[in-house]
């Protein structure tokens, strides 16, 4: 099949960008979306043009590097699918496809379809861990974890940090990302000691990073390639509130509404 692409091209963070039209020929249904872009890029290089820049690495939906807006939808039309796992059988001959980078204040464009998502790392650095050092830890079976808790924790821990939730959110909020980590750790006994502090500092960091507030549109869970549920956000808000009340401080001003 043949497609017409309109791809966002932007030479650098401060350069002006625009949509450029490309024809993608001989696209096969078994190709992934990125393989389709590879083919377009091969032709661009051969003709001496600069290829379209996009982030990618594992190409199996787990590293979280890839991600573009496809016709305005983060990661494209398939539910629970990262861009690298989206296959061209989801498109039809003659389709016109708009390909753009994640758009959010928290994610400045680096080049073309590639954005800077380092804010997500900084959110983790603000408390998304259990403060244990290497060594001296108790035996793995000393603390039983109910299977249901372990499973729910794993559901949240499956986040790949791609940023689709932010890109899909009309407010540009990173709540799903942040809540997934707070839930992952908060559901395990190992995460209890720092639970309050974690919620307070991660939420505060999220706000500092220019991400918007959550108003429960629910677009994030639709876009999430791992189908993480917005129930995690409810859990985050509860943890945040509880922690703020306990501390009796003004920490609540950071807001997790």
């Amino acid at each position, binding site marked *: 099949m043949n497609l017409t692409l309109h791809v966002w091209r932007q030479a650098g963070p401060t350069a002006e960008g625009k949509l450029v039209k490309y024809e993608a020929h001989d696209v*096969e249904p078994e190709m992934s979306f990125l393989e389709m872009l*590879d083919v377009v890029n091969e032709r661009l290089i051969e003709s001496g043009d600069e290829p379209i820049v996009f982030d990618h690495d*594992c*190409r199996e939906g787990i590293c979280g590097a890839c991600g573009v807006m496809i016709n305005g939808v983060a990661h494209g039309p398939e539910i629970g699918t990262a861009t690298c796992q989206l296959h061209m059988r989801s498109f039809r001959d003659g389709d016109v496809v708009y390909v753009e980078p994640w758009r959010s204040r928290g994610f400045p464009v680096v080049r073309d379809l590639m954005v800077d998502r380092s804010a997500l790392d900084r959110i*983790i650095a603000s408390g998304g861990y259990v403060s*244990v050092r290497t060594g001296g830890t108790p035996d*793995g*079976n000393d603390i039983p974890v109910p299977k249901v808790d372990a*499973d729910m924790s794993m559901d949240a821990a499956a986040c790949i940090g791609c940023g689709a939730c932010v890109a899909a959110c009309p407010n540009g909020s990173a709540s799903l990302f942040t809540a997934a980590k707070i839930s992952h750790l908060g559901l395990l006994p190992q995460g209890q000691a720092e639970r309050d502090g974690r919620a307070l500092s991660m939420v505060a960091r999220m706000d500092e990073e220019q991400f918007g507030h959550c108003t429960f549109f629910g677009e994030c869970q639709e876009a999430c390639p791992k189908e993480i549920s917005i129930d995690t956000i409810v859990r985050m808000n509860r943890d945040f509130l509880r922690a703020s009340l306990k501390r009796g401080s003004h920490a609540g001003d950071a807001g997790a509404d």
Partner: protein
Amino acid sequence: MELRSQVPEGPLEKKWDQHLFDMKLVNPANKRKYNVIVVGSGLAGASAAATMSELGYNVKCFCYQDSPRRAHSIAAQGGINAAKNYQNDGDSVYRLFYDTVKGGDFRSREANVYRLAQISVNIIDQCVAQGVPFAREYGGLLANRSFGGAQVSRTFYARGQTGQQLLLGAYQALEKEIAVGSVRMYPRTEMLDLVVVDGRARGIVVRDLRTGAISSHLADAVVLATGGYGNVFYLSTNARGCNTTAIWRAHKRGAAFANPCFTQIHPTCIPVSGDYQSKLTLMSESLRNDGRVWVPRKAGDNRPPNQIPKEDRDYYLERKYPSFGNLSPRDISSRAAKQVCDEGRGVGPGGRGVYLDFHDAIQRLGEDKIRERYGNLFEMYERITDENPYKVPMRIYPASHYTMGGLWVDYNLMSTIPGCFVLGEANYSDHGANRLGASALMQGLADGYFVIPSTISNYLASNKLDAVTDDADAVRSTVQDVEERTRRLLSINGTRTPASLHRELGHIMWEYCGMGRTAEGLQTALTLIPKLREEFWQNLRVPGSGEQLNQTLEHAGRLADFLELGELMCVDALHREESCGGHFREEYQTPDGEALRNDDDFAYVAAWEYVGENVPPVLHKEPLTFESVQLSQRSYK
């Protein structure tokens, strides 16, 4: 060059403990004065960087992705081994050690493997404490599954995302150290050379992938944890960015490269579907716990799988290896798949595939149980192939997956360049000629959390290191080399894209240095690769400049190194006139087609020294002596 293994004296079980006691320490206040560079943020790199930072060292950590969390360890699916014996099924440190040495076809160093098995139990404790959500039984205790090459259940897992969860544990530990300022992280930064001053590794030269700026970073020791080189085959289960550049440049600066031809072809990957294909996707070995591998008994049987009755199927692994069956080790399973396909009994397009069938397991356990165990893998399979594996058997075929070879290291994980340490898949150390499933994650974390923090202290405490500055000759000339090379790559202005050349290299490697190797084939490859390299340097096209983000340039640089490494792999494969593990020389096989080792002549590690362009590499041998296990022909029958 001399290979000194530095294996401590004393009985096998006591070596590591004794060594820990004998090694010198750096006192806590002094640690702050030392700078350590860690290249790589996978399981090995992230765990090493976090732990050394906790101890007090100043750490700089580098990765080429936009975040350390995206290192390819993230993609490991099946699990991690540990000799916990929680199942009470007869496991022990010794058994894990024994299985690993045997699984590696007796081409690894006993002392290292024993240490690995010992440390395995601490790894699980560490990860649990970090909040890794391992699978649990209903009683709340940790669950296990089985992996190839073992008859006990010792593999810990987090659904089909074990690597992801372990890496996130290490990444979070790393972020915690970044937050306190004792690790400085450099994402989107690629190491392009090693700085060696007065014979010691003292830094690296990197390119900032966003701006193209080339600069040096100096330190008291350099740790390379840059993963495997499976992408030399172009198509592999590795991420697209996985490369050999860091270790290859270190090799060219004096680090011996050990057993480069020991590569692992994984038996269960989704078959190739077309020329545009950019990578191959693994279907975890854990699936072989419940899936049965078969092909039609007769060549040319084109009936859909469901219509082929049991008596017309050949469950060839169960038939040939009754005691390990579908859980036979990877090298053996891959070769068996190739063999049935060569006989014309393969299934799917091109006849390059075998069935992995869950029908019996679903009958026995129900679809829900299977979904719980492998749900995400089944989904992944369906997304790629558009076939529902709950209903029709998966089609799988072997693909390049893991590289046992890597930089030679001593017991302290130090390469032949003092001060340059190598961890994880990038070193050659623990897996001999074949790695068992669920052992790479174990090794990466053992190296990073538990070995390097001690051995690096010993190195720093035992050596007086002079200060080095950016304007030292060795530093400046290394930076210049990198600049010059980058300029060269950009100036060829030919007609071929890196991808097209890479694909061609991949074909050569797969054909002649893949699952079956012959002297003749390897000689052919040794004429084809230099020609292709010439084509590369004459006809490459890299648009754009070096002073900007340029992914074509990145790919070209990595390919240039693969084009050199590929040749060394063939040289190594040609010289090793025996079959062992993943290295199958067709001339050397038993009457029933199994690998035929030659312990008299080849029970050694082949460590190759680089001595200059267009000069044959020099072979150094580290003899392997086995005190604790008896050398025997591997049998999984």
